[in-house]
């Protein structure tokens, strides 16, 4: 009975430590997306390089593809860009760019400078499509399957490690 007096506070302290330790390993910026396993929201907006041509996600039906949110003002996108270029070189998956809240001229200049890994980019000047996709910080990447269902959302820049560990297995599974 006497020992309980010491064990109980110690146990509470230990439990608190466990919870706090778990908390430390979590990134509060990574908010679970409500879009996983839901159809990709429809939109029809102009392409970045061809203002007259419109794109809508339905055009990609039957293909596994990535929708990558980027902008010329986005610093982390610069970090991610070489990885996207590499994915494109390896022909892993068609990547559609969603140019988010950007000036057309800035965006095209940026792609000229850093390389263009995209099948094409669409131009979301007012961020409307961004809102419909719950975008809150570029870069973000959606993996969309053949039926047009979002299977995965990557928040923040894709690292070379993410390509091998997350994207390759997922793409293989979705393409199977």
């Amino acid at each position, binding site marked *: 009975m006497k020992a309980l007096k010491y064990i109980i506070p110690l146990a509470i302290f230990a439990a608190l430590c466990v919870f706090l330790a778990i908390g430390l390993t979590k990134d*509060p*910026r990574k*908010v*679970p*997306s*409500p879009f996983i396993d839901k159809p990709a929201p429809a939109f029809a907006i102009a392409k970045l390089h061809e203002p007259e041509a419109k794109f809508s996600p339905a055009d990609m039906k039957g293909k596994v593809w990535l929708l990558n949110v980027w902008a010329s003002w986005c610093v982390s996108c610069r970090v991610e860009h070489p990885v996207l270029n590499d994915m494109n070189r390896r022909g892993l998956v068609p990547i559609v760019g969603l140019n988010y*809240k950007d000036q057309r001229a800035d965006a095209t200049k940026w792609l000229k400078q850093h390389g263009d890994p995209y099948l094409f980019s669409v131009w979301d000047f*007012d*961020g409307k499509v*961004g*809102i*419909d*996709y*719950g975008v*809150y*910080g570029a870069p973000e990447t959606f993996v969309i399957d053949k039926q047009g269902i979002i299977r995965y959302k990557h928040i923040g820049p894709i690292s070379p490690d993410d390509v091998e560990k997350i994207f390759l297995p997922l793409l293989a599974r979705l393409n199977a």
Partner: protein
Amino acid sequence: MKRLLAPLLFAACLPAWGQSAEVAHPDPKVEARLKAIAHELRCLVCQNQTIADSDAPLAVDLRQQTRKMIAEGKSDDEIRSYMVDRYGDFVLYKPPFNAVTAVLWVGPPLLIVGGLAGLVVMLRRRRAATQEGAAPLDEKRRREIEALLASEGDSGPKA
């Protein structure tokens, strides 16, 4: 010099307030409702601010979207579910009760009730203990105690 510097620095901060390209709705009723709803919605860019407090571009966009929806006659619930559909429950400062948030909602009341129960038990026990101790000494024990105190005074360490 310092007296001059403070207002100067303050003035230097002023232009920053006017930067967002936000246009208030002409109808004050719309703005009032926007204010109420915006205070319940989290800005996901700067996570500890509401979209009412934040000047992040996303917060400005979401305020603008909310304004539009209010003007279209959408109810508060419709606007809230519009946001939740896109950003998840995390966008709500008052999260709904479900399997994931159950601990969040039930935890604090449980802790309070548990703590109070523990306190009551402890106080009862203590009272019982002091009442026992307050029982009058019989003559034999009193002499024992006095003897002990006396011997303590002889052999105990001197201060």
